[in-house]
Structures are given as structure tokens and as C-alpha cells.
């Protein structure tokens, strides 16, 4: 190991992205170690719990298909309930991933490297959870494929005017691109795992998916190009997806839904909730898997800053909704918002505002931003708050134009089991991911190490360090 570490030179070097004494080899060791360690009991327990909850999801869905949407709390004015709330909630969470990987990548935000893998995985899994709901919430699941423009004996096309149809395309596109993006990023690391594989199964498995990566110069060039292209492709999607999801509401005529502020407000909210979820996952897992050196306080703090910004944006949107409701002069619009805040669902509105607008304000202080416990708790608050935001929006249905048709919506046990179950699905996938794939992008982290700089004067003295580093690169 080199005795001269970058720390001596802090004055001229920017603070490191990787804390602690690390060289290329130790990084590989640290991150691959997580995967290569034998299964430990805690992990198995965690998986067991998550799996059980996931089973609850599938049981609920089975019963739903058997009996019909009547098992939920839906009624006549309130045709959409928790299913749609959960859908928007999960899609929202699915935003941070692409944002971090694509946008921050394009803006050369190097600090993203430690968390992007993480965030992308989360995105994929969240979008999977989201996709479950629109699929199951329709009355006749077996006919749901009519939404797809497939030539058929009825000579019927879907209705391209319907935002629900745009949704189908938007979300599935987003899912595909995110998946590709994630996978391309994984290739070099899979190769690393392949090379270090002890068991034949791992050797073959990682081998198959690493597409014969050998770390040749040409490979790296293609890789960089592909990664750049996908990033460029994914960036507009970050905006489009939630914009279109917001159209599901904004295109209707209902007071409280029919507003132009929805697209930006939904996108901001999505990023907000996405980052919150990343933190919720990152804070504990960096501890559990000893990745503190890679997901440093600096990462956490940056994300907290983004949460502060987006949270405040969302708060602005809430205020603006009210103003416009009053300014529009439409009594229905006005009533819809008064009703949100003071009607039967006042508690939901309160939860939304306090969690989304008030709680992030703590992050004005660096102390809070850098405090892990606070960060974790607040991130949970934000998740709750964002779920309630979608609940409040959907529940606007319960009182619209004619008082005679007003009603009240209350969820049934099946609404809850389905929602809870979706978390089971999410965490099952995530726990598997942590165990079988490198949770931090090894190659990218190495890319931001001082050693990656050919002129790093450490090389002058520590030859073995050089050879070490080189051999590491050669090894691929």
C-alpha cells in the first residue's frame, strides 16, 4: 500500500469521492466481497420477510382476478382508489435512478458514481411495481390487451386520444430504456465478478451476461459511446414519463385534476420522492455492506440538497394550486381545494403538506444534511408524504360537481394488502440485487479515484501501486 495518500494534498486536490485508504484492488475487493461472501443469515431472513410480503401481493391479485375490482373500496364517484395512487407513487420513485445516472452523468457530476447503480436498480424495481397496478386495476383483465394497437378481427384500434393509452407507451418505454441503461453499466463489473468467480455456476452466469467483456480498449470505447447515447436517450424520458402520468389527471374535466400545473409539479414530486427512496435504501445498506467509503457523507449531503430543492418546488406547487383555484373564479375549482384541505380528507392533506413541504426544510442546516439518522427519518417522511400527495389528488374524485353524487372512499383490507405487497415485491428484488450484483459501479468508482489520473504523483514512488493498478486494469 502507498504511504502517500491524497489526503496530504487536500489543499490542491478536490475532496475525494472515495473515503479511506483505497486503491483499485481494495475497491474491487470491497465491492465484490459483498457478492462473494457466503450467504449470511440476516440476508436470508430479510429475503424471507420480503418474499412473504410479496406472496401476499400475488395472493391479493389472485383473489382480485377471481372476484373483480369490487374487493377494493371503490365506489361510484371514486372510480380510482389505491391502485392508481400506488401506481403514481411507484412511478415517481422510479425517477431518481435515471435522473442520477443520465442527467448527472451528462453534467459530469462525478459524485453520482457511487450511487447510480443503486438508484438505477431501484428505478427498475419501482417501475416493475408501478406496472403491476394499471395492469390489475381494470375490470376485465383478460381484455386489457385491447389497449395495445394490435390488428384484430374486430377491426378496432385503441383510442389514441386517451391519456391512459399514452401512459402505456410512456411507462413501458421508460422501463425498457432504464433497463438497458442499467445493464450496459453492469457489463464491466459482471466481467470482474466472472473473473473472480469461484463456482462454475457463477463463472458461467456472470460470463453469459458479461458478453465476453475483456476490458480491451475497443470494448471501453464502445461502452463509453453506448453509455453516453443511452444517457442522452433517457434524459428526456425523465421528464416525459411523469408528465404523461400527470395527464391521466390533467386531461380530465374534474375540478382539482384539470390543471396545467400538473406536469412540472408531478416531475418535481417524482424526483423528490425518488431521491428520498434512494436515501431510504442507501443509508442502511451502506452500513450493512460496509460501503461507507463509497457512499460517503458527501453523497448523502448532495442528495439532501436536491431533496430540499424539489421539496420546496412541490410546496410552491401546492400554494400555486390554491391561488389558481381562487383566481380562476370557478367555484368548483375553489371548492375542490377547500375540500382537500378542510373536507373529510383533511388529515391526508395535512400529512402531505407536513411531510413534503415542512420536513425537508430541516436540510437548510448542514448539521441535519450530514446527520444519517435525520436523513433516514426524513427520507421516510418524504416517502409517506408523496404517497399521500397522490392519495389527496385521487380522492378529489369524491366530491365533484353534483352534491347528490358525492360519496366517501375507504380502503378495504385488499387495498392495503396489495399496496403492502408491492413493497414486498420491491424489496425482494432489491435484496436479491444487493447480493448477486455489484451494488456500486466498480469501474466507474475507479474512474474517479486519484489513481485514475495518469499524472498522479503517487506513481512516482509506489511502483507496486502502479503495477497493482495496471495489473488490475489488465486483469479485465
Amino acid at each position, binding site marked *: 500500500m502507498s504511504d502517500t495518500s491524497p489526503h496530504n494534498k487536500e489543499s490542491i486536490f478536490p475532496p475525494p469521492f472515495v473515503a479511506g485508504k483505497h486503491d483499485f484492488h481494495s475497491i474491487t475487493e470491497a465491492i465484490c466481497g459483498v457478492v462473494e461472501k457466503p450467504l449470511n443469515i440476516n440476508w436470508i431472513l430479510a429475503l424471507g420477510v420480503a418474499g412473504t410480503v410479496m406472496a401476499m401481493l400475488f395472493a391479493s391479485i389472485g383473489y382480485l382476478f377471481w372476484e373483480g375490482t369490487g374487493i377494493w373500496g371503490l365506489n*361510484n*364517484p371514486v372510480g380510482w382508489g389505491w391502485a392508481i395512487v400506488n401506481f403514481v407513487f411507484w412511478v415517481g420513485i422510479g425517477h431518481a435512478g435515471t435522473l442520477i445516472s443520465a442527467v448527472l452523468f451528462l453534467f459530469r457530476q462525478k459524485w453520482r458514481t457511487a450511487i447510480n447503480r443503486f438508484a438505477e436498480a431501484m428505478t427498475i424495481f419501482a417501475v416493475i411495481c408501478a406496472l403491476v397496478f394499471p395492469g390489475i386495476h381494470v375490470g376485465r383483465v383478460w381484455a386489457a390487451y385491447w389497449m395495445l394497437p394490435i390488428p384484430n378481427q374486430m377491426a378496432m384500434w385503441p383510442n389514441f386520444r386517451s391519456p*391512459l393509452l399514452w401512459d402505456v407507451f410512456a411507462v413501458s418505454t421508460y422501463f425498457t430504456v432504464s433497463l438497458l441503461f442499467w445493464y450496459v453499466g453492469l457489463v464491466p463489473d459482471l466481467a470482474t465478478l466472472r473473473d473472480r468467480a469461484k463456482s462454475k455456476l457463477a463463472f458461467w452466469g456472470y460470463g453469459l451476461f458479461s458478453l465476453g467483456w475483456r476490458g480491451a480498449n475497443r470494448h471501453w470505447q464502445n461502452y463509453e459511446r453506448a453509455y453516453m447515447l443511452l444517457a442522452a436517450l433517457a434524459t428526456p424520458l425523465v421528464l416525459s414519463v411523469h408528465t404523461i402520468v400527470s395527464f391521466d389527471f390533467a386531461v*380530465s374535466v374534474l375540478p382539482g385534476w384539470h390543471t396545467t400545473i400538473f406536469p412540472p409539479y408531478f416531475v418535481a414530486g417524482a424526483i423528490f420522492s425518488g431521491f428520498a427512496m434512494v436515501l431510504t435504501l442507501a443509508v442502511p445498506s451502506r452500513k450493512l455492506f460496509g460501503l461507507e467509503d463509497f457512499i460517503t457523507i458527501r453523497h448523502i449531503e448532495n442528495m439532501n440538497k436536491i431533496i430540499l430543492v424539489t421539496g420546496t418546488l412541490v410546496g410552491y406547487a401546492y400554494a400555486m394550486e390554491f391561488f389558481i383555484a381562487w383566481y380562476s373564479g370557478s*367555484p368548483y375549482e375553489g371548492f375542490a381545494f377547500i375540500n382537500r384541505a*378542510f373536507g373529510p380528507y383533511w388529515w391526508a392533506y395535512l400529512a402531505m403538506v407536513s411531510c413534503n413541504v415542512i420536513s425537508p426544510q430541516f436540510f437548510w442546516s448542514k448539521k441535519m444534511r450530514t446527520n444519517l439518522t435525520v436523513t433516514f427519518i426524513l427520507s421516510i417522511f418524504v416517502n409517506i408524504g408523496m404517497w399521500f400527495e397522490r392519495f389527496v389528488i385521487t380522492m378529489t374524485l369524491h366530491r365533484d360537481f353534483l352534491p347528490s353524487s358525492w360519496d366517501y372512499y375507504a380502503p378495504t383490507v385488499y387495498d392495503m394488502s396489495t399496496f403492502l405487497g408491492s413493497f414486498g415485491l420491491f424489496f425482494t428484488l432489491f435484496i436479491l440485487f444487493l447480493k448477486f450484483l455489484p451494488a456500486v459501479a466498480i469501474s466507474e468508482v475507479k474512474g474517479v479515484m486519484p489513481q485514475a489520473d495518469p499524472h498522479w504523483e503517487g506513481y512516482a514512488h509506489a511502483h507496486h501501486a502502479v503495477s497493482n493498478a495496471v495489473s488490475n486494469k489488465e486483469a479485465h
Partner: protein
Amino acid sequence: MKSDTTRKYWRSFDERNQTDAYKAEVSREFQDELDVSTPEPEGTSRRGFLGWVGASLAASGLAGCDAIRRPAEKILPYSVAPEEILPGIPQYYASVTQVGGEVVGVLVESHEGRPTKVEGNPLHRGSLGALSALHQSQVLDLYDPQRLRATAANGRALSAAEARALLAEKGAAWAGKRVAFLAEGVPSPQLARLRAAALARFAGAQWFTYESVSDDHQRAATQAVFGEALRPVYGFAGAKTILSLDADFLGGEGPAVAAARQWADTRRVGANKDASALSRLYAVEASFSLTGSNADHRVRASHAQVEAFAIAVAGQLGVSAPAASVVLEDRQVKAAAAVAADLRASGAGALVLAGRKQPPVVHALAAAMNAALGASVRYYPDARRAPDALGDMAAAKALVAALSAGEVDVLVILGGNPAYTFPADAKLADAVKKAGEVVYLADMTNETTAALDAAKAVVVPRAHYLEAWGDLAHIDGQVALQQPLIQPLHAALSELELLAALLGDKDAKGYDLVRGAWKDATGAVGFHKRWRRWLHEGVVDDAHAAFAASPKAPSGLGGLTATAAAAPAADKLDVLFVPSHNLFDGRFANNSWQQEVPDPLTKITWDNAALLSPATAKALGVVERPVDSDFAVDMVEVTLNGATLKTAAWVMPGLADNTVVLTLGYGREFKNYLPYQEGSYNDSTVYGFDVGPLRASAAPFAASGAKVTKVEGSYFIAAVQRYDNSRQHSIEGFENMERPKIVRETTVAGYAENPTFAKPGIIQHGAPMPDKTKFAVLHPEAKSIYGDFDYSQGHQWGMVIDLSTCTGCNACMVACVAENNIPMVGKDQVRRGREMHWIRMDRYFTGDDANPEVVHQPIACQQCETAPCENVCPVAATVHSPEGLNDMVYNRCIGTRYCANNCPLKVRRFNFYNYSKGQDELIHMQRNPNVTVRFRGVMEKCTYCVQRINKGKRNAALNPEVKQQIIDRITPACAQGCPTKAITFGDINNPKSEVAQLKAAALDYVLLSELNLQSRTSFLAKVRNPNPSFPG
């Protein structure tokens, strides 16, 4: 499944296989004139095969949305085709029915022999072309799976023929025995004839007539002032001022269907410029009746004060009246003065009606006032009972007394359910066991069959009116022939057949009895022609009316004096017993249509509750629960001379204080199967509370001195309209947030000075957007996102609903259910807000809670030209037709429910479950084959009865020479069934059509026009006719 069905119904036709009978029928067809004594041909023809052929075809309408080719389907043609039936073309036959003695003539639609829908017979004066909700629902009873299938006699199940034989021999054996008959008040000349015969045959036999919803008081009064029991028939035509003393003449007292129509005709403004000719309605009442909700001035008064009010008015009209026993409040005194003045001013145009809850003296006063004013009231004998018969309550007591004393060897019960409906102090259940033997003609197992001693009882299934021959006399004597549409589905007999059998004629068929009697009565000459014409028209010529108006004039009050009564107080409340608007006296308890249609005022379905005024409720600590509490309402205990009743409490604005209103007919088990009726909101299928135990024969409608206390526990109520009162429109602190008026109303004076008051801010159909409206900001200009479709071509369907004449009686809701195969979902589902009615009868209170005014507004799909539901459907399952219909395509719908969310009026209904799952096939036979039975997971809504439109267009194409007439006659079920003709439907492109003219009327407005919906359904604003000099 179909072959099963077939076999099942096959067996149920006892005499289906008489092939010679059909030969007779065929011959009859060709030699009508010669042979006038043909037996009614049972084996064949219209009433022959039909049941089971119908069943097989009916079943084909049920696969719902997902039809699959295999397994192979059978086609079962007739072996001998009845001439008049061509599959696919429904038959219509005239018949007649009654509920509680109120008769309406009907036209019955029959598909391949299955009666599916009844409509009013315009030639019948009790119907005038419309029906009440109750009469509409009777067709469902025909197919009630709970009906008795065979006669039960000492453990054996007998066919109809065997039953007849048994009865005949019983009758023979009864000579010298003490026989008692108990019948319902059915005004049938044939029944009267057989009654006389029976009384003659069985020496010393007694005949009791009992109706739980009794007109005893009216009878007593007329007995006193006319010397005989008479029923008044009010001439609403030309009435100027109507005073209802607790008389719910719009809600079912007397011939309500006709009365509603005649009254509405005096309230119609339509396109008229001048509304000054409108009649004015005053209602004085303690409960809140449908009539009260339609009154221009509703005077809230305690039960006793109604009498005092009548006395006060009578006094000022110069009618000698006794001194009132309770004092009127100041406002009531002033009101009485104003009413009296108004009545006097109207002279012969005045009408005073007394309600059945009121004591005889009020009826007498009403008669006297009408006489004094020269009002057009005619009095007819009461055909529901023998002239010398005991009153209902007296009859009940006498019968039970005789039974208990063991003075009855044989009891013959002709229909009804006396064990349930008898008053508390005449307990038939115990007494009936003392009878030597009992013959009970019953619809289904009920409280009475349970009370019978099986060893001594013969229970005979009672034929439905669509299965049996008979005749009924309207209140004014017009007779109509009750013509069956189908052979009895089960081994059932009619009252007439049962009596005839007891009298020894064991092969008597209803057909012979009725036809024979009418032949004897009117002579054989040309009888067959006459008979055929009567059957065709459904009514018998007035030359053969059952009775004529009585010439008698009332003589004073007939010695009736004021009832001694005290004003109700917090410790001794008044209790009022009102017949249920939905279940009547309980006879509809097994009819899901009636159970699920909401009460017109409380909007409660499937239940009854003790109604309390807000003040009384407050005093008792009963709180009106917030809507988000699942309507878990408080329970109260009502104690009335010894008897107690624990029931749910419901706060009802406008009731008299210290008064409890209890609804009859509930607390009975609903025995039919609804797949999702049980759930967390109801654990049993016994709905509501039986108030019978509190109901004494001495005070069948009004009692005083009750104690009411709030008790532990709560009860789930399924009410379809949760937000109704003005105070509930908005949130505390924001009450005065203005929203555009949904219901627009004015007064006669207001209309005169500003006829177009309903227009401002309204975007008219086809007209450009007015630039200065409150909502102009929402709609800079009226544009459709579909581009402008040219609706000026071809037929363009539209509807106008007149809020001035809509009484909120629910007839349209039930007519719609019958026509469109709308599933009933059960209390639990209604509670969850999933009722399926395509028409919603909205009820709004205005004014203060103590004595509010009411508006009824039927809301169905408005068929918007720029429908918000259409563009959001991802699969184009709801789209527009070139004739302006908003088509809903069940078989394309995948159930995203976005259309329902986006419907500003929330008129779309979603099948959250498969609501017809596992129902008995008998019920399926009622289904309309021209309307798809919807499956789970699809949206549905009002279609303007597109099946009728298509049929009309087809017939017009087939008969070009009368094309226009046929098109003009196209009518949706709701408009057809509306007693007041408040709903008008037609082609708005035809300037001559009524609907087009009404749409041009000054009062015409559309809902939520600021959304530029371009609705095809518009409303005529309500015009009230208040008395300017009435004390505010």
C-alpha cells in the same frame, strides 16, 4: 344448461300435453262466432309452450359480455307454432292489476311468451298510460323463485288438478261447519259474485276483508255523513287550490297514478308564456309525504294539529265545526286563514283532501268543505268489500276473537299475510292454530304459513295476476279484464279458481268463470266480438261499469266530534305509522327492485328507520352522523303502551317535533339470492324493523304517549344520497361558497317578470357562447375536441325533464330497471356506493331544517354531444353515434373506470362484481332479450333505451306509409312509465316534435353548461305557485 331449463319448466306445466286442447284452439281460431263456449285452450298457443320455450331463449340472453361458440347450443323450435308468435317480435296484451285495492290497467310486453315488462294502459282511468313503481315491480314477483310450487296438504305436494279435486271434496264436507273467509280488499266483481255464492253455500259463514293499509277512517266518516261507505274521487282537472290534510294523494293514497297525472296537468308550464293558471297545493302534515314535498306551502303540524287546522279552515268557510282539542301555533292560525281565503276565492276550483291517517272527523270536515265550496268530488261505493263488511281493524279483531273462542271450524285465507300484517292486539299467529282446518292461498312461505299447523292446513300456491283470469273494478266503476300472459309457472290457483273449487266445480278454469259470468251479465248476442274487443282494449265498456257515482250529498258531520288529543311532548311523543313507499304493507319484501329503489324522501334503501325531526333528535341525543362514518346511525327504543321496539333512528328535516314516524312493511326476511348482498354492512337478510308490535287496532296510523330513548348500539343504513341538505353542500366555514344552481326554480310571479331566469350563463344547444358569463373564463368559446360534427341531419334524440311536474315517485327508476336488465346489488353494495340504477332520483332540501322545501331531480346520462367520458376511454368503448347518442359498448369495455371519473354528473355505473352470478333461472326469464346482460368489469349507463329507438326505426322502415307516426312514438321506458309525463323524449331535429318545442321554452336549461357538455337532456326549471299573502 338450456336443456335442463327446458325440462324443469316442462314438468311444471301440469296440463301442457293435452294435444286435443290445441286442436280445439285451432278450430276456435276459425269459427269464433259459432262456438262461444270453447274452454280456455290451455295446452297450446300463446300460453302453452311459452314458459319453457321462453326459458331456453331467455337463457341465451345471459352469457353476458363474453360469449363463446362452444359447447354447442341447441335451438328448440315449436313443434306447433302459435300463429301470433314470430320469434324476435314481442307481443303486447292488455290486463289489469292492483296493489292494496288500487287498480291500474296494464299493457304487458311478452317475448316468446315471457312477460318481461308492464306498462300503463291509456284507456284505463286508473292508469292513463302510466304505472307506479309498485305496479312496475309486480312482474318480478311472477318469477320469484321463492313462490310456492305445489299445494301442500298433509305432507303431500299436489298438482293444480289434484288441489282442485281436494278442495272440491273439502267444500262438500264443510256443510254445517262454521266457515270463515279472510280476503284482501280486491275490488273484483267476480270475487264479489263468488263471495256471495260462498256465503250462500256455507250457511253462517263469515267473510272478513282486511287490508293493513286501511281506509277505515274514511269509511267511518262516509258511513256517518252519507249513510254508506263511499270513496271520494277528486276532480283535479280545473282545480285551482288544493288543500291536503295529511293526504298523500301523490304517494299512494287512493288512485295515485291517475291523480298524479291529473294534478300534474294543472302544474304544467312547458312552453307557455303564462303560468298564472297553475293550481296551488297546500299540505298540512306531521310526517313528510311525497305530496308534502311537492306542495307550494307545506304547513308543519303535529298529528292532532292537522285536525285543528281543518277545523280552523272549516270554520272560516262557514262549515259548522266542533271545537278543536289542541291549540294551533300562531303561524298555523295565520296559515289557516290564508288557506281558507284562497279556497273560498277558488270556489268550485277548490279541493280539500283528507288523509287516511286522520280521524273520521277530518274526512267529514273535508267532505263538508268540498260540499260548501262546490268542489268537484264524486263519491263511489267501496268495491273492495261487502257493503256491510266490518272495517279492516274490526275485522281483524273479530276474526281473531272468533278463532280464539274456537268458533271457527274452517278458515279460508285468500292471499295476504295476516300473521304479519294484523295489528298487535289481534295476534293471528296464536289464534289460527285453534281453527279446525285452514285453507291458505299463499304466494310463498311467510309468517302466516309458519303459524299454521301443518296437519290441519292446506296451503295452495296463489297464481300471479299474469297467470290467472279475473276482472277488477277501478275506483270509479270502470271494469278491466285481467288476462293472463302465461300458464301458471307452478301449480297455482287464483282466488276465483279456489273459491269455485270449494263450491264444488273442480274443473273450473278462471277463463270459464270470468268469461261465463260476463256472458251471462251482458248477453250472448255478439258476445264473442265484444269479449275480444274488451280483451284487446283491456277495459270493459262503461255501459257495464261495476257501479256508478252515488248521488248522495253529505249531511253535516254526521255527529262526529273532535278527537280528544293532546299536543305531543318530549315525554309522550306521537307515533305515526306510514305504509312504505317501497314495500307497501310488506308484500314487496321479497322483491329486490322495490327493496333497492330508495325511499323518495329519506333516500334509504333496503331498510326503514324511526324518523325524527332535527329538534327532537337533538333532544334525544341522536346525532346525524357525518357521511364518512358509514352511516352507523344511533338506535332508539320506542315504547308505546307496553310494547317496545328497538330501531334505527334517522334525522328527517321537516317532521313535526316530538313525533316518531315508523314505516310499515319491513323487518321481513329477503329470501331471494343476490350474490353480494351480505357483507360487513349487514349480517342477516332481514332488513329493517317490524313496527307491527307497536301497532294497535285502535290506533293503526297514529298513536300518542310514546316514550323514545336512545339506546346502545348502532345500525348501518344504506342511503343512496349522502349529501343533500344545503348545509352539507359545503364545508364548515365555507357555507356561502357559491356554486351554480343545479336545480333552478322560480315562482309564478318570478316567471312572469323574468321568464328566462334559468338561462343566464347557460350555453344553449347549438348557439354560440355568450360572451359575458361568470364562467366565460373557463370557456373562451364552445368548441369540441372532436371537431364539429354536423348534428343537423337525420334524427337527433333529445329529452326534456320538467321539474315542475316531477313528483319524485321513482316510477321511472323501476321502469328503467325492468326494461334494461339492471342488476340489483343488495344493501351491502348500495352502502358501498355501488347501486346500479341508471336513473338517479336526486332530492334536495332548501330552506331551514325545521320546514324545508324539496326538489326532486331525476338524473340519468345527459348524452352530451361533447361527452367528457368519450375521449378518455383507451379502447373507444364509449363513443358517439351520428344520432347524438353517447353509446356505451359493454363488449368493448375493459373497465378502466376513467369514463365514470370524468363524467361530471357521475351517472355511469360500474359492475364491480358479476351481480347476476348464480341467480335462479326463473329470474332470468324476466330479462329483456333486446338488452345485453352486463358482465363483471364493464361500465354501463342510460342509453335512451337505444333498443327501443332501433326497434322504432326498423318498424318505420318496414311501414314507410306511417313512418313519422312510428318515429314520434319512440319512448324510453322512463318517459313511458312517468305518471305525470314529466319526461319528454323525441327527435329535436323535427321542429314539430314536442321535445323540440319544449327545448325552445323559456324555462329550458341544461346542467353544467359551463363545461360545454352540449347535453341532449335538458330540464324545465321548476315553477312554484306560492300564495303571496301566505304568512312567511
